C-alpha cells in the first residue's frame, strides 16, 4: 500500500513544496491536502493517513489547536508540525500537545528523510 499523507497548510505554495519533496523519495505516495484547517480537523480522523503534516499559523483553528483537538479525540497517528515559527517555546508546546516531530520551514530534504524513516520508509 502506498503511503498516504494529509498535508494541512493554508499556503498552496508550501503544500506543493512539501508534496514534491515527499514524492522525490516516495513517488507512489498519495496526498490529501487541506487549505482550511477546520475541514482538516473534521476529515482527518476518517482518512486513515499514514502521517499528517500540520502548519501552525493558520486561520481558526490554528495548527496547535488542531493538534490538540486531534489528540484529545484519541487520534494516534503521526502528526508532524511544519512551521516557520521556530521559537523553542513553540516546539516545546507542540511536543507537549503530542506532535510526532517538528519540521522548520522551509522544509529541508534531510527533515523529510527523517520523517519518512520514522514512518518505516527505506531510503
Amino acid at each position, binding site marked *: 500500500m502506498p503511503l498516504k499523507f494529509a498535508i494541512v497548510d493554508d499556503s*498552496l505554495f508550501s503544500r506543493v513544496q512539501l508534496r514534491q519533496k515527499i514524492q522525490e523519495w516516495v513517488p507512489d505516495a498519495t496526498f490529501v491536502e487541506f487549505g482550511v484547517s477546520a475541514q482538516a480537523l473534521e476529515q482527518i480522523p476518517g482518512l486513515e493517513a499514514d502521517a499528517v503534516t500540520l502548519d501552525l499559523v493558520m486561520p481558526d483553528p490554528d495548527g496547535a489547536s488542531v493538534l490538540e483537538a486531534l489528540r484529545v479525540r484519541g487520534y494516534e497517528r503521526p502528526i508532524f508540525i511544519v512551521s*516557520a515559527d*521556530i*521559537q523553542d517555546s*513553540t516546539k516545546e508546546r507542540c511536543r507537549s500537545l503530542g506532535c510526532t516531530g517538528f519540521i522548520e*520551514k*522551509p522544509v529541508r530534504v534531510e527533515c523529510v528523510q527523517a520523517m519518512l524513516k520514522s514512518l518505516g520508509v527505506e531510503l
Partner: protein
Amino acid sequence: MTDTSLMDPVIKDAFLEIANIGIGKSAASMSQLAGKHVAITIPSIDFVRTGERDSFQLMTGTSSTVIVEQRFHGEVVGTAILCLATSGALKLASMLLGEEVHQDAFGEMEQGALLELGNIMIGGLVGNMSNVLHLHIGYDIPEMQLNGTGKVLTLMQKEGACTVVVNSNLAIESTDVSSFLLLVFGENEFEALLDKIRSVM
C-alpha cells in the same frame, strides 16, 4: 526615555546581533526555497521614530513596494513587515517558482510564494529574537500587499511608534535584491522589548 536608549551602543549592538542571526536564517531559508546560494550583506540597523517616517522612503528609494505584514503578540507586541521593491519581488518570485514572472502576471501562485517567503523571513528574525530573549510570541496570519508603501507609512506614523529597520542586500546569482525587515512597535511595547534586552545582558 526611548530616544536615550536608542543611542545606547549596547542596545544597538544587541539588535544588530539579533538581526544578524535572524537575517542569516532568512537567507538560508531563501536559499533552500530557491535552490541557489544566497549571499547576504551584513545587515544595518536603523531606528525610526514617528516624526522621521519619511526617512523610510529615503532608505527604500522606491514608491512601489511589495510588503508582507505579520503581527505578533505575547510578551512583546508589534508588527513585522518584509518590504521588497516590486522589481526585486518579481525576481524573487521567478526564482522561487522556477519560471519567468511578468509584472502583469503577478498571480495567486506568485503572491503565495512571496507570502510564504515573508512568513519564513519574519519567522527567522522574530523567532530568533524570541529565542535569544527567552520569550514566547504568537503570530497572526501574514498578509501581503502588492503596493504597501502607504500601509507601512501609516503604521510608522502612529503616535509614539518606533520602527526597527533591518536592511540587507540579498544576492542570488547575478540578481541583487534589497530587502527591508521592519519591526514596528508602539511606545510602551518598545519599552517592554528594551527591558527584555536589558534583562539578558
